[in-house]
C-alpha cells in the first residue's frame, strides 16, 4: 500500500508547573509584567468569584452553578488572546474569558440565579450568551465567522467547548464548514478530562482531541491549558491567522476540572481523590504567580492585597446580585418576538392576572 497523506499534532507548553519558562522565545506579552499581572488579576478574581458562587448556591441563594475551578488559564488566556471586536461563543463556564471581556460577576450570578437579564451582559454586545446544549455553539460560531468574512471585517470568533463536546456531530460539521470556507474562527476545546462522570478516555479512542481537526483538513494543536502563556500565544496566533483570512484552527487545551461538574454533581461518585490531588499539583494560578515572582514584580504582600481587593469586588457584585429586582412576569412574553403577536396577547393577560391572584 502506498502512503497517500501524513499528519502530525504538536504540543505547546511554555510555563511548566513550577513556573519555569521552557522556551527561549517568549511572546512579547509574557515579557511584559503589566500584561502578565493583568491576566493574573483576572485569573484570581475568577477563582474568588467561583468559590463565592458555590457558597451562594450552598446557602440557597443561587441555582445550579458550573464551577470553573482549575480552568482559569485556559479561560483567561483565551479572553486575553481576543480583541474586543472578536466574538466569543462560550459554553457555560468560561467566566474568566468573559470577565476579561467586560462581563460583570453579578451578571453571571443573575444567569445562574435564574434571571435571563444576566445574558444581557456588559461584555461586548456581539458576544454570545452561555450555551447549554453541548457543542451547538460551534455551529453558530461558524455562522458568526461567516458574517465577518462576508462583510470583510477583520474579526474572528472563538468557539469554546469541552472534551465531551467533541463527541457531538455539530462540532465536526462546524469544523468542516470552517475549513471549506476558511472561516475566521478558532475552536478551543478545553479538555478538562471529564464530561460530568465520563472520563476523556471513554469519550473517544482518538489519542488527542486536536487530531479531530484532520477530519476537516484544518490545523490542530494541543497545548498545556494550565499554562496561560501557551494558551494566549497559540490562541492569539490562531486568531491573527483567522483575521487575516488564513482560516480556522482547532486548539486543544489540556487542563483539569478540579470541582464537581456543577453544584448538582458529586464527583466522588466516579473519580478518585488521588487523581484530583495530582491535578491540583499542576493547577494554573500557582505557576503564574511563581513566574510573576521570578519577574520580580510579585510577593506575598502584593498577593494578599490582591486577594483582599478581589474579595471586595466580588462581595460588591454579590450585593448587587442579591438586590437586583426580580424579572417582570411580562418579560416572558415581551422578548419572544420583536413585536408581541396578537396570538400571545391573551396569554400575556392571563399570566398577569394569575400573578395578581397568587399574591
Amino acid at each position, binding site marked *: 500500500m502506498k502512503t497517500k497523506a501524513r499528519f502530525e499534532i504538536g504540543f505547546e507548553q511554555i510555563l511548566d508547573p513550577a513556573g519555569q519558562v521552557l522556551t527561549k522565545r517568549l511572546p512579547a506579552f509574557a515579557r511584559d509584567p503589566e500584561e502578565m499581572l493583568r491576566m493574573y488579576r483576572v485569573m484570581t478574581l475568577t477563582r474568588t468569584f467561583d468559590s463565592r458562587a458555590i457558597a451562594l448556591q450552598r446557602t440557597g441563594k443561587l441555582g445550579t452553578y458550573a464551577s470553573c475551578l482549575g480552568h482559569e488559564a485556559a479561560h483567561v488566556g483565551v479572553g486575553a488572546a481576543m480583541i474586543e471586536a472578536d466574538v466569543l461563543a462560550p459554553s457555560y463556564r468560561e467566566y474568566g474569558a468573559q470577565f476579561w471581556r467586560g462581563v460583570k460577576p453579578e451578571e453571571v450570578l443573575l444567569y445562574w440565579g435564574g434571571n435571563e437579564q444576566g445574558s444581557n451582559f456588559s461584555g461586548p454586545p*456581539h458576544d454570545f*450568551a452561555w450555551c447549554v446544549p453541548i457543542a451547538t455553539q460551534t455551529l453558530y460560531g461558524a455562522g*458568526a465567522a461567516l*458574517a*465577518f468574512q462576508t462583510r470583510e471585517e477583520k474579526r474572528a470568533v472563538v468557539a469554546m467547548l469541552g472534551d465531551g463536546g467533541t463527541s457531538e456531530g455539530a462540532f465536526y460539521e462546524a469544523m468542516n*464548514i470552517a475549513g471549506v470556507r476558511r472561516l475566521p474562527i478558532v475552536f478551543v476545546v478545553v479538555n478538562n478530562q471529564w464530561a460530568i462522570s465520563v472520563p476523556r478516555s471513554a469519550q473517544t479512542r482518538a489519542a488527542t482531541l486536536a487530531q479531530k481537526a484532520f477530519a476537516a483538513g484544518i490545523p490542530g494543536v494541543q497545548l498545556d491549558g494550565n499554562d496561560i502563556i501557551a494558551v494566549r500565544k497559540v490562541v492569539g496566533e490562531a486568531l491573527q491567522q483567522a483575521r487575516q483570512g488564513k482560516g480556522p484552527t482547532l486548539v486543544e487545551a489540556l487542563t483539569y476540572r478540579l470541582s464537581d461538574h456543577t453544584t448538582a454533581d458529586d464527583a466522588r461518585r466516579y473519580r478518585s481523590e488521588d487523581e484530583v490531588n495530582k491535578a491540583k499539583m499542576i493547577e494554573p494560578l500557582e505557576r503564574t504567580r511563581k513566574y510573576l515572582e521570578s519577574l520580580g514584580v510579585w510577593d506575598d504582600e502584593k498577593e494578599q492585597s490582591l486577594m483582599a481587593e478581589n474579595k471586595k469586588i466580588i462581595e460588591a457584585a454579590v450585593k448587587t446580585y442579591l438586590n437586583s429586582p426580580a424579572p417582570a412576569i411580562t418579560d416572558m412574553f415581551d422578548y419572544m*418576538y*420583536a413585536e408581541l403577536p396578537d396570538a400571545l396577547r391573551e396569554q400575556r393577560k392571563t399570566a398577569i392576572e394569575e400573578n395578581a391572584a397568587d399574591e
Partner: protein
Amino acid sequence: MSKITLLEAVTQALSWELEHDDSILVFGEDVGANGGVFRATDGLQKRFGANRVFDTPLAEAMIAGLCVGLSAQGMKPVGEIQFSGFMYPAVDQLVSHASRMRNRTRGRLSCPMVLRAPYGGGIHAPELHSESMEALYAHVPGLRVVIPSSPQRAYGLLLAAMRDPDPVVFLEPKRIYRITKQEVPDNGQALPLDTCFVLREGTDVTLASWGAMINETLKAATQLAAQGIECEVIDLATVKPLDLETLVESVERTARLVIIAEEPRSCGVGAEIAAAVAEKALYSLVAPIERVSGYDVIMPLSKLENNYLPSVNRIQKAVLRTLEAER
C-alpha cells in the same frame, strides 16, 4: 405582465431582496450552480456571486447553525433545506437557539433568519420527500411558520419573512410549485405575516386550509357552490402564530368549520385551530368541527400517496356532514 409559477415567485422574491438588501445571503445544498433541485435559486449565484449565493457541504444542522450565527451578527441568512424531510438535524439549532436568542438575551441578540424548505406530498417522490410536518415547528415557541399557497402569496410572504426581525420557517408546497401561474408584479411589496387570507367568501361553512391543499379546498368550494352551498375559504398562510380572529369571526357567521390539511392528524396545526376556535366560538357551532387531514401514518410511497392525501371528494363529504349535523 407574464404570469409566473409559485416556484418562480420564490426565485423572484429572493432575487429582489438580494438586490435590495446587502445583508441577504442565500445558501444550502445544491443552491449554487445547480440552482436548487427544484430551481428555486436558479440563476442567483450567477447574478449575485458565490459570496452571496452558495452551496454548503451536506449538513443540515450546519445550515441552520450558519443561519443562527449570521443573523445574530447582523446578516440576513436565507438557508435552504433541500426537502423538509431533511430538516430534522436542523431542529436542534431551531429550537435551542434560533427561537430563543432574543428571549435568552433579553433583546440583545436576535435571529432574523429564514429557513426555506419544499414540503408536502403529491409529486411521487421517494421516502422522506413528501411529509407535512409543519406542526413540529408550529409547536415551538418563538418560531414563525409561514406557508404560501399561490405565486402572489409566495412572493409577498417570502419578502415579509426575509424582512421579519425574527426567525421564520418557510415551507413551500412543492406539489403546487408549478401548477398555477399568476401575475406577480416584481415590486418588492411584502404581504403581512400573522394574517389569514380569505380566498373566497361564503356564508354556509368555513373551510380553513393552507399550502397545497388550498387547491383541493377551492375546488371543493366551487363544486359545492354549484349545489348552492357557499363556502368561505381561508388560507392560514402563517400557521404560527395563528390569526385566530379572522377564523373565529368567520365561524361565528357560518357556524361550521372544516379544516383541510395534509399533515398527520394528531397534534397538528388542525388540532390547534379546532381547539382554539371551539374555545372562542363553541356556542356558534352547529356542527362538530371536521378535520380532513392526513392520517397518523407514515406518508406512503407513491403508490399509495393519493390514498393518504385528502381528496376533493373527502372535503365535500365533510362539508355536507357539517351541513346535515344538527344540534
